């Protein structure tokens, strides 16, 4: 599950993520990190589900980090998609595939949110979710 973490100002200097990783032993993958004078924002991929996921989210919230689940980073507008495949091979996470009938499908779980596909699509059928 991909999560968007928003750190309050006074927590930006604290290694909240590292402490939670050590504590839970979960191999969190950092997809995006942005630190400004007033906030810290991160997009992470936490490779657990169910109760374990909810417990991990609770740990962040206890540290006063705001957590939002990212269900989809991009989506394919099937009304616009022409099934050309231009988005498929540029995807570095191999999250887009073509079925036997060449129709294009996004596997949300694999998406790392790099947005290369959005520009690669010639008919602008891939939009940020």
């Amino acid at each position, binding site marked *: 599950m991909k999560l968007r973490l928003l750190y309050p100002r006074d927590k930006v200097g604290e290694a909240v993520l590292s402490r939670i990783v050590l504590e839970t032993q979960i191999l969190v993958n950092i997809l995006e990190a942005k630190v400004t004078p007033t906030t810290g924002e991160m997009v992470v991929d936490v490779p657990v589900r169910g109760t374990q996921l909810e417990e991990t989210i609770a740990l962040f919230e206890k540290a006063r980090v705001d957590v939002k689940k990212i269900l989809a980073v991009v989506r394919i507008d099937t009304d616009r998609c022409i099934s050309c*495949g231009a988005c498929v*091979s*540029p995807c570095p996470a*191999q999250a887009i595939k073509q079925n036997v009938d*060449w129709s294009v499908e996004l596997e949300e779980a694999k998406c790392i949110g790099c947005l290369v596909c959005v520009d690669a699509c010639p008919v602008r059928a891939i939009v940020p979710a």
Partner: protein
Amino acid sequence: MPELHKPVGTMIEELGSESLRTYEEINEKIVRGDAVVLTADEFVAHAAKNGLHATANEVDVVTTGTFGAMCSSGVFLNFGHSEPPIKMLRCWLNDVPAYKGLAAVDAYIGAAAMSESRGFDYGGGHVIEDLVSGKEIALRGEGYGTDCYPRKSIETTLVLGDLNQAILVNPRNAYQHYNAATNSTDRILYTYMGTLLPHFGNVTYSGAGQLSPLYKDSGFETIGIGTKIFLGGGVGYVMGEGTQHSPQTQFGTIMVRGDLKNMNSRYLRGASFHRYGTTLYVGLGIPIPIVNMRVAESAALKDEEIHTSVVDYGVPSRNRPAIRKVSYADLKSGEIYIKDRKSRTSPLSSFKYAKEIAETLKHWIQERRFSLCRPTELLPRQREFKPLQVGRPPHGEDDAEQYFGNSSRGSSGSSRQYDDDY
């Protein structure tokens, strides 16, 4: 590519020979409703299973299809005259400049022209898609005013039905086949072959392979001026060779026309390649009459037998190195080896739509709504594909010889230096 003039029996058949069946015989069967029509995919499978001879004797027509980016496409428009009338010198459709070097209210909107306000996001191809979709288009025109055309400017909106003519005329469509593309550099490249990841990170390719209209008649025995085709969802015609037509290397192209008012936006889509420019995806399909064994052999070619080169677009030259040869079957498998690493492949032209077009054309023929036309002149099978020389002075100059020399980039002995622009 099938060998031309291969002897059949003891006779060498002339080009376009109708030894198996004639256009008239085929059209009579179409009218009766018992023409045997297969898509190219079906014909390939049938020939593999039953043998070429049996298949060629049985099947009358093979339908083909392609849906890819065709930048040399556009529409000739006639707006009709305003009151008072204007002779437009410049005009814009939704801020996209159209060519106005024709009569007062004749214009040509090309797929690759781009909006002066929206740039790469909206071009001539998008205007064409919007027109076919029935959307309102903003027309702006400027003229210098004459005694007979006193008006100097005009701004109005119009829809497709308002136009006297809207004729799709595409100077280069339906490439017989095309390159595959990769990138040897260490940065992402944005090209007309899509997004290319660094260090051979991916491979893109274009062309419908065994569904490709021109590849299925590689000998160009049935396609030519007057061939009736599926174009943009309606009926169109081949006008002759397209620009850069290069038959000897299987890079044949055609110029086509059709009435935009009978087309549909499913098969005419405005498109934009990031940091490259705008274009138009065109749906095109050609019925191939199986008139002789050579045509049958060409129509039966399968993806495994249709080859192309993986070309390195990381080299900014008109002569890009070919990294390796592959078949369309290799490309369609989803991954190929480049040097010693596996690279994922993906197409730029839609096989889903190509199949749909071939199927649609098949149904049109089976439903007796579409007959075949014998072309009045076949496509040329020989063309020299010349480059553009930079810095060559006009013919007839006294010291012209010192500029020609041996170098294609201009003479080394000259006092003038020319930079080649890419």
